[in-house]
């Protein structure tokens, strides 16, 4: 493996380290414990400068899928190199409204608006910071 590839792998593992302890909005468990995220969840294409994160909601009709996506983006936003483009999606076939969830999670205007909404903000913060408990 080239040094670059090793660095990239380390980077991916580091990202997982940052997000594995995020608490599920509906369960007292972390996303990793619920198998929402695994080490295969993050792929990095260094040449194109892209990061793709796929997660697997616990059930097909998970109403919190968009909140989980917001949590991932929020938690990682300060750890991405600024020139990288980040796409967050549910794993193919893992959600009943896959297309609409993916569209919403990658519309940055809706994401920005959601993070300015006090109720959603509080929910995301609870998921992100209760992990220390």
């Amino acid at each position, binding site marked *: 493996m080239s040094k670059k590839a090793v660095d990239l792998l380390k980077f991916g593992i580091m990202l997982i380290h940052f997000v594995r302890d995020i608490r599920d909005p509906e369960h007292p468990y972390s996303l990793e414990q619920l198998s929402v995220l695994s080490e295969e969840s993050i792929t990095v294409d260094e040449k194109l400068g892209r990061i793709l994160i796929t997660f697997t909601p616990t059930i097909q009709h998970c109403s919190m899928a968009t909140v989980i996506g917001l949590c991932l983006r929020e938690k990682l936003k300060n750890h991405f190199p*600024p*020139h990288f*483009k980040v796409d967050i999606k549910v794993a193919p076939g893992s959600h009943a409204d896959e297309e609409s969830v993916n*569209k919403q999670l990658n*519309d*940055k*205007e*809706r994401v*920005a*608006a959601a993070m*300015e909404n006090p109720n959603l903000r509080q929910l995301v913060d609870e998921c992100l910071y209760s992990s220390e408990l």
Partner: protein
Amino acid sequence: MNFDDDDFELREIQRLEGHTDRVWSVAWKPDTGINGVPAVLASCSGDKTVRIWEQNSIGSFQCQAVLEETHTRTVRSCAWSPSGKYLATASFDATTAIWENVGVDFECVSSLEGHDNEVKSVSWNASGTLLATSGRDKSVWIWEALPGNEFDCVSVLQGHTQDVKMVQWNPSMDTLFSCSYDNTIKVWVEDSDSEDWHCIQTLGESTSTVWSVAFNASGDKMVSCSDDLTVKIWIDVGRMQGLHKNAPWKHVCTLSGYHDRTIFSVHWSREGIIASGAADDAICLFVENNDNEVDGPTFKLLSKKEKAHEMDVNSVQWNTGDKRLLASASDDGTVKIWELVRLSG
């Protein structure tokens, strides 16, 4: 102007720093940058402020005013009235503010309330008598400007099934265009008898969110851009055939393969150059081909500026003055001023 024989490129004139969050939108003040009147630009941001930039005598832009402590959330869009006397700003705080410009001062003289939540776009009609706003509540509102800085809501237009990203008036007639997360563009006109506004056409050629639309100077052609990575050209069939009625708009050309991330903004210069700004950090310029007019107009790439910004390009706007100035706004928190120059040799 002939763009066939020469190479052109966008040259960076200046990088404007001051916003502390992503810059969503820029708007040139009308009739500035021409006949010795210094160019004036407004920019709005996720930092909840609007900045006014003015070009000084040596051609350098400086921040002349910061409009703050009015909006409590992101300012998503801004638009000057045709006279340049007013600036309207649309915010995620559910309001649209009207600022009166006196000298170097800006005073908030009105706040338009009505949308349920985030307002995403605002546009003045060509005479400055009507204002349109749109937002996450899927509605488009039309407001009439009355004496004494009063604004009356004259219509609330329902029809889109998802949030309405942008509203834009046609420059030559009071026809309103709106584009949406529901992948469509809708065309709205006022019924002359009932004075009610209604949708006369839904343009559904796009396969994802339509982020922005713009018109050529005469208003008989429209360009749209989308999350489906295309730029589309539309013509007003009726006017093209010399009929001044509300004939349908027709899709005539799709430009694809030029951007590989969401295209957020398009704008048509007075002399016919289309600029597009996208999440791939690039700005593209397109012009109409002079040949092959049989099947309607076709367009070609004039120039592409890779890495125009360090992050997504959210807005591109041509100045209408003496020089071919383009302003762009980005997630990197900066506004850039570009000049389109002919390459020598």
